[in-house]
Structure formats: C-alpha cells, structure tokens
C-alpha cells in the first residue's frame, strides 16, 4: 500500500516565487524550459536541473542548498514511487505533503467534501460537518494538470451534490480540460429530486459522465435504515428518475452485507421492473473501514454465505439485459456461475492478497482484497489450483 500523505515534511518555500501549492511532477531532466516554472522536479541522487518551480528531494540531506527562486520539499524513501505526471500539494505553513494524483494508478479518486446527508452503517469515509469548500478550489486547480490520456476519474465524498452549483462547475471544468476522460460521480442522488438541478448537469453535455447511486433494498425502510436517513429511498429513486429523464447515465451500487443480502434478488426484480433504463448495476463487497468496524456485528456476513442470493440477483439483472458487475469479491468464494460478472475493481493502493492466495491459479483475474480486509475477511479463502479449473 502506497503512502500518499506526510505531515511534518521539511519545506523550503520561496514566497516571492509565486510558487503554486499544487503542481505536476516530472523526472525528465530535459524537460522544456517553459514548463519548468510551473512544475516540480523529482530529484534523486542530487540531480537538480535548473529552472523548476519546485524540487521534490528524495532521500536528500535536509541542508542541500536549493537554488533561488525555487522551492523544495524533502521526502523520505516511501515516496520513491513518485513519477512523471503525478500531481502533489505542498502546504508550506503546516508542512504537509499530499499526492493528489498518481498517473500510473488505475483509479483516480477525488474526495470533494466530507459533508454528507447520509450516515451509512458501513460508510468507508465517515462524514464530518466541516466547511471544506477549499477542497473544490484545489481540485479546480488540479484538473488542468491531469494527463489528458487519463481514462477515467471519480468524484466522491461525503455527498458531492451538497456542493450544488460548485459541483456543476467542476463537471464543466473536467469537460473542458479532460475531453477524453470519463467522469464518475458517487452520489446518493437525493439532490436530483430537484429536476432543475439534474437538468444543469445535462446542460453541461459532458462527453462521458455517470452517476453511481446506491439503492440497498427494495424495501424503503430498510434502505433508509442502512443509510440512516428517513425518506432517503423515495428521494433517491425520484432522483434517479430525474437523472434519466435528462438522459444522464446512472449506475446503481449495492453494497452487500448482513442488512442487505437477504433481498438482493427482490432488489434486482425491483430495478428490472421500475428502473430498467439504468445504465449498469454493481454489487459490491463490504470494505472493512470507517463505520463498518464499529457496526461489524450488524454488517458482517461471510460472502460465502450469500452466494445463492447474489447469483439469483445477478442472473435476474443479466437476464433482463441490464449491464451487471460484481466488485470486491474474491473468486475463490464467488460462485463460478457469476465469475463472468466479477471485475477487478479495487483501487490499486487499497488492493492486496492474503497468504492463503499463494499458489492460486486465478489470482491475476481476481480483484483481491481491500488492504483494510486484514481486519476481517472470509474464512473460506483458498487458492484455486490449476487442476481444479479443468
């Protein structure tokens, strides 16, 4: 697992250089000069070509002289993975360093706000009621620096729609600066109960925008219980209707746990019958982080124990010609009947395998685990040996 942030870093900050707080890195000593004044150079072994706004000093002595008017941040070896195209933020006042964008990662996730109007039992990112509008400012600054060949980026929260018009601004910004990049926004969809709000996103006419919205049960009160918000089910469903009314794309995301597994097939039936126009449905394994740990007794069920419900649910949607995927499930505890729907979906910096996986023949096709799964995972994990595959 990669280390993405560090506090207490040593920073040499030249205020007169108008150095950006957020900048893109390169390790190319031949980098064209016009680009250097807005970029950072990854300095290994003391190499410091002139003219960069920043130097990211890897394993350098803290008293290495930094040429005027450049700034520098001194980083330990754990950041040796930094590469050209990565985007970082240096907070010189608080001595914080953050990697905001890793070019080589497969998934690019941006948290837009920590605020939320849900309080989900299994929230992986427990909400905080804070004024964090600065995050949007940072992301607006960062988007133009992202490599244009990036296939997809993901906005999450908190609840991004709480940003209102600022979220629309962000979508417009990604359309403008990343014309070949898909944009996935995770939202509870409730804000779209206001059709005019949904319409503003349609008017942006983004080339590849999808909203990922959770529905956890066909039973309104059970959904409301899981997200700890009364009336949420009705608003989410109406929100989805408004998004589709505006021809926006919608993915339904279903996290499977003890409170949701029993009626998965009925939920599929509800979706096929009422929301048949959604663009895809995703079933997801539980992530052992955030509130999940606190609610473990209410949430944990070994995935092996809900396979029959999951198989029925996946088959029903697939038979209804709805694009269906299963995320975060290890193949050895997933019924082979639904292997064709299982995707490798875990963000690479969260993704790991267990000691039980040694010798497994299908590991390369398996999503593996969230690193948080070390806390708890299925007791039925076992290597699938080549022989067993026929």
């Amino acid at each position, binding site marked *: 697992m990669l280390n993405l942030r560090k506090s207490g870093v040593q920073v040499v900050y030249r205020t007169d250089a108008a150095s950006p707080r957020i900048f893109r890195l390169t390790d190319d000593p031949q980098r064209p000069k016009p680009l250097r004044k807005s970029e950072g150079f990854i300095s290994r072994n003391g190499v410091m070509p002139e003219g960069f706004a920043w130097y990211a000093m890897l394993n350098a002595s803290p008293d290495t002289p930094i040429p005027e008017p450049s700034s520098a941040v001194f980083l330990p070896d754990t950041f040796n993975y930094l590469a050209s195209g990565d985007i970082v933020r240096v907070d010189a006042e608080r001595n914080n360093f953050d990697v905001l964008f890793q070019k080589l990662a497969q998934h690019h996730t941006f948290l837009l706000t920590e605020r939320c109007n849900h309080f989900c039992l299994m929230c992986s990112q427990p909400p905080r009621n804070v004024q964090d509008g600065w995050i949007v400012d940072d992301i607006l600054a960062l988007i133009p620096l992202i490599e244009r060949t990036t296939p997809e980026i993901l906005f999450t929260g908190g609840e991004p729609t709480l940003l209102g018009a600022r979220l629309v601004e962000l979508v417009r910004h990604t359309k403008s600066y990343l014309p070949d990049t898909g944009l996935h926004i995770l939202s509870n969809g409730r804000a779209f109960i206001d059709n005019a709000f949904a319409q503003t996103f349609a008017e942006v006419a983004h080339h590849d925008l999808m909203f990922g919205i959770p529905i956890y049960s066909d039973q*309104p*009160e*059970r959904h409301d*219980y899981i997200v700890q918000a009364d009336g949420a089910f009705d608003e989410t469903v*109406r929100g989805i*209707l408004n998004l589709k009314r505006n021809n926006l794309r919608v993915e339904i995301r279903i996290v499977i746990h003890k409170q949701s597994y029993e009626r998965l097939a009925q939920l599929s039936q509800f979706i096929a019958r*009422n929301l*048949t126009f959604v663009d895809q449905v995703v079933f997801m394994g539980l992530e052992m982080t955030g509130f999940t740990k606190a609610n473990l007794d209410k949430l944990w069920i070994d995935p092996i124990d809900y396979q029959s419900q999951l198989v029925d649910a996946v*088959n029903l949607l697939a*038979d209804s010609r709805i694009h269906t995927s299963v995320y975060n499930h290890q193949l050895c505890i997933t019924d082979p009947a639904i292997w064709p729907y299982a995707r490798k979906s875990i963000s690479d910096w969260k993704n790991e395998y267990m000691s039980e996986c040694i010798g497994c023949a299908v590991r390369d096709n398996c999503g593996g685990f969230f690193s948080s799964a070390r806390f708890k995972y299925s007791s039925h994990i076992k290597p699938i040996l080549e022989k067993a595959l026929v």
Partner: protein
Amino acid sequence: MSKFQPLASYRAGQTDDYKLLPLRFSELDADRYLLSNFVGEIHVLDKAVAREFFRHRLPSTSAHYAELKSKHFLLDEDSNVAIDLLALKTRTRLERVSQFTGLHLFVVTLRCEHSCPYCQVSRQNDDKTNFDMSVENSERSLDLVFKSPSPHIKIEFQGGEPLLNFRLIRHIVEGAEARNKIEKRNLDFVIATNLAVISNEILDYCRDHSIHISTSLDGPRDLHNKNRPRPGGDSYERATSGIDKVRAALGRDQISAVMTTTNSSLDRVKDIIDEYVSLSFDSIFLRPLSPYGFAVKTKWYDSYDNEKWLKFYFEGIDYIIDLNRKGVQFKETYASTVLTKMLTPFQPGYVDLMSPAGIGIGALLYNYDGAVYASDESRMLAEMGDNRFRLGTVSDEYETLISSDALLDPLEASFAASAPMCSTCAFEPYCGADPVYHHATQGDYVGRKPLSGFCNRNMSIFKGLITRMESDAYTRRLFTRWANR
C-alpha cells in the same frame, strides 16, 4: 447511546396500516389467486393469505407484505414513490400507442401456387392477374405509410404468395427507401413467403435491401406436404431448400418460420419442434388456426377445439423447456410475447394481444384491390364477404382512414380494461382486445367472454405459463430470458 438508529425507527407503518393500490385478482387454481396490477406486476397468493391482505390484516412482518409492497400492490406510511413509479410504468406500457401505426402490410397479390385447405386469406389461382396490386395503388399506399408518425416502420409483403408479384415488391421497396431519405425512420422490410418460387435474383435483391424473410413450416415432410399441397407435392422440399438458400445469401437470422396447427399436427408437437431444431431455428410460433377464409369453408377450423389445441400447445411448451434444460436454446414465440407483458415493463407490438386493440393503430393493411383494412384478419374477413373492418381505400386521406368509424367504434367498444368480464380479470394486462375475432365469431366487437375461444385459449395460456414458472426456478429463469429476448 449509539449514534446509529435501529431499523424499527425507520419503519413508519408500525401499525400494519396500509392502503391497497389498484389491483385485480383471479383464481389461478383451487388454492391460489393470481394478483395483478394495471402495469402487469404479478403476485400469486394462497387464497387465505389473499383474504387477509384484502381485509387489511396482513402483518408487515409477513414475507408477502414485503413482496406486495415491492410490486406496488400496497402503500404504507414509509414510502409513496410507488405512485411515481406506477405512473412511469403506465406511460411505458402505453408508449407504443402514442407512436401509432408501425406495421404496414401490403397484399401485393392474392395469387398463390399453393392450395392449402386451411388458407385463411382465400388465395386465388396464380393465373388471375386481376388479383395483383397496381403500381398506382402501391404508391398511394406508400404515401399513407409515411403519414404514420411512428419512428419505426415495418413494411410486410403478404399474399397470396407475394413473390409472384416481385416486380411490385421492388417498386415498393425502392419507393419506401427514396421517401425514407427524408423521413429517416427505422425502416424494415419483411416478405412472408412459402419460398417455393424464390430465385437467386430475388435473394440478391433481398440481401442488398436488408429484407427479412418469414416463411411457413408446419413440421416434418409428411405433415407439411399434407397441410400445404402444391403442384408436384414438394412444398416441404422447396421450403427447406429455400431456408438454406436464404441463410446462405442473407445470414442465419434473416429468416424466421411460423407453423399452423391442423388436426394432423395435434399428436405430433415434438416432431414439429424437432424439425425446427434440426433446421437450426431458435424459436417456433405454435399457432392455432383462425376462423377465417378456407379454414372455415373446408371445416378445418372446426376440426379441433381449444382443449385439444391447448394440450398440444403445452405439450410443446414442456418439451421446449426440457430441450433448454438439455442445453438447446430454443423458445416459443407466443409465450415469449406473453411473458414480456408479464415480466417486463414493456409492451410487445403483437396485434392480437394489444388493448387498445392493435387494429389500425398497431397495423394497417393495403389490399391488392386498393382497399385499406385495419389488420390482416380484417381483410381475411372481407374475402368472406364481411367488410366491417374496411377503413376505406388508398385514395382516401390518412386522417379520414384513421378516424373512420370503422376503426374508432371497435377500438372504443373492445378496450379490454372496460369490457365486461375483462375489466375485473387479473389476466387483462397480459391479454388483448381483438374485436375482429369477436366480431367474426360472435357478431360483436366485445363478445361474451365465457363463449370466446380467444378468452378461453389465452386465459389457459396465461395460467399455464404462470403455474410453470411459479413451481420451478429453472423455468422462471428461462421465461425471464424469453421475456427479455
């Protein structure tokens, strides 16, 4: 105290107080009712449980309560988004009506070189060219076709044997294509042919103009040739070699086949299906005879009753289910149509199973003589001397035809949701109005349903299909796939 609230605090309907949403129920068998709502959701309940439900005494902890709530049979304090979703599903079901006529049938000739005793269109011998459609009338017909606002236009060439007037087919295809350069509709062509006179020239033309072929195949050689006599007694040989030629020229899926059930078919459903499987069709349409044309005159229509046909049909359905279990992907077309109405929010465009009826608004027929009819069956009836569903001629204005009393009266009278006995029938969402059939058999657009062969046959089919999928998970999944073909 936990910052998380328990499930109970999100359950507003604690008192088991619920409202019934509009629903109907009919007896499925001695012990069970079938419940349906007006968007076609299905729920089967034991009669005793159903009574508790109707009396507002079903506890919210009951498994049926959750199902009935999920399928929009009841409403409680927890949620009212059901109303929005019911409205949406109603619009979806009726969408086809708003699009108006999509299927346009051209009887380019009534001549045929076959002499099937069950012919329902009353074909003429193939030397009588006064039974051909004129070029002039075909052009007027095309004008009418493109007056329909439907984004999907399917032109189906019918007969007689339409290939006997292939020159006119070419004229119509090219005329339609020329008009469509401006109209930009989804334009499809189908030729319904017995394939006996198909030639390489015709095949090349069909390939170049993406014309789909629909043919007749009644089963194995002996049965087919007995049902479908022609000079030389080689209908089967010509049909099967025609199927091969069409596949080679146009592609495997560019041909489909339909069968007609005669008295001789009744104990041979497996042979018939096997014939289709061995010819690598992936579906069959098991069709009973209809009360029109020679089928009535020769008394072939009366040669078997509904009961015999239903036995034949379900023997076929069970055999097809069994084939699927053994890995052969094969389906029955009529069941698939019904199942789409039962298991999806969508309405298939099959004329007989539409309400409002499919006549006129689902299909229009341009006859060889320039008359315009409300459906294929309407002109079959006209050949028997009954012009009730003749809307006018191709020289009339589109608006005149489509707003004629000959169309509007039967549409209004037969609308199933308000017809006696249909309005209270739980199977109504899956059924159709079919005023032509009821007029032909009872002299009335609505008819008395207990005497209606249409009602009896379809009701039995609905019950048979539901019973099969309720009792077997494999069948349920298979039927879901058929419904979503």
